[in-house]
């Protein structure tokens, strides 16, 4: 019997290695795998590359992981946001690397990794500072930047419900970065609010097919904090 459901956060994160590229889903608090992030803090892996939209807020979650010196590099689109105090401190002190990627390019680079595409061209960032160091090329008179696939060793995602095959369904805008990140990592771990019997999730409502998910852990977190 295929059973991707594990009993604890610790089990869900077993084997995450130092130096891993970790894709972290969510957009703001919605769809954020907060229990898995806390679990990663416990788990101890260091020298991590964190790929996510923002560079953390406050001193909890990803910010805490950074503060503990466990993140070598952040790949994100929006490092400086309200409350990104830890990142800003570390960055100023030269203790964390940063790769800024336009939000759509970030998503597309992961989609490319998931779809067997090592590189693609996009007009986003053409002619701007963010094309520096990248190949550019004209197609039909327009300038494009060549972007490379971005693959994770681990993806931490959050979903509303899951079954033992790892099929995930999302609630409201809780999908966001989660579906694409789930497809783009060697090991995808999902934190979900509800477990369902196989067949209970409508085949058309599956947002992430189980083929992309290796481990599922149920955590009753209640609604995302949107203070």
């Amino acid at each position, binding site marked *: 019997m295929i059973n991707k459901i594990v009993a604890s956060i610790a089990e869900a994160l077993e084997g995450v290695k130092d130096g891993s590229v970790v894709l972290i889903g969510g957009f703001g608090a919605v769809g954020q795998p907060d229990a898995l992030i806390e679990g990663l803090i416990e788990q101890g892996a260091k020298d991590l590359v964190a790929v996510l939209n923002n560079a953390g807020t406050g001193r909890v979650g990803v910010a805490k992981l950074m503060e503990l010196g466990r993140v070598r590099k952040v790949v994100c689109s929006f*490092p400086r946001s309200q409350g990104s105090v830890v990142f800003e401190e570390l960055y100023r002190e030269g203790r964390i690397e940063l790769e800024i990627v336009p939000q759509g390019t970030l998503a597309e680079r992961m989609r490319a990794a998931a779809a067997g595409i090592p590189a693609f061209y*996009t007009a986003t960032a053409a*002619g701007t500072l963010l094309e520096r160091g990248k190949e550019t090329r004209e197609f039909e008179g327009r300038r494009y930047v060549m972007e490379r696939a971005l693959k994770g060793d681990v993806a931490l995602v959050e979903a509303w419900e899951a079954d033992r095959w790892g099929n995930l369904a999302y609630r409201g805008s809780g999908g966001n970065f989660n579906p*694409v990140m789930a497809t783009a990592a060697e090991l995808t771990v999902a934190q979900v609010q509800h477990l369902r019997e196989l067949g209970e999730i409508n085949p058309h409502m599956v947002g992430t097919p189980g083929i992309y998910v290796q481990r599922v852990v149920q955590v009753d977190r209640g609604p995302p904090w949107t203070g």
Partner: protein
Amino acid sequence: MQPFSRDQMARRAADDIPEGWCVNLGIGIPTLVANHVPTDREVVFHSENGILGMGPAPAKGREDPWLVNAGKQLITLVPGASFVGHADSFAMIRGGHIDLCVLGGFEVAENGDLANWATSENDTAPAVGGAMDLAAGAKRLWVLMEHTTKDGRPKVVERCGYPLTGLGCVTRVYTNLAVLDVVPGRGFVVREMAPGVDFETLQSRSAARLHLQA
């Protein structure tokens, strides 16, 4: 001189959005535009985090914490709404499917260049978010911004001094003083001025040549 208030700027932009357009509003002032589209005019609002058919803020007590927009504010859905993930949401933007994007700006140049994400080449950690995707991908890009900075420096310029967000992407600018079209090969063309603003005053507060409509 009665410059447009932020709400008046947003209303001016809202007035120009025809029924049926799919529109992405940047965070900040552009978000106000949604409040001013007449309720009998169907405009579909897109949010980068995967929502097509975003509605207004929820009434007190009716909030759904799983529903936020790109600015992470609580929102509602309208009937006809749909969800997609981030990759598909940005494919809509980057593939030219969004009819209009309204963004804020630091500077807009007469060739349509936009600078709105970094204030210096030496700022090594600027937050770009989805701005470059929207600038490169939206069918039309309108900018909603004050005509000058707080210390009076023009934001309507010949060439952008700040790092660019996108090249030749802006098609119209709504400021507190005027509405300007950006016309390829011609530059800024004045569509409208705020009450009591005359062309000379407007020109004096701009660092690019302005043109009157033919």
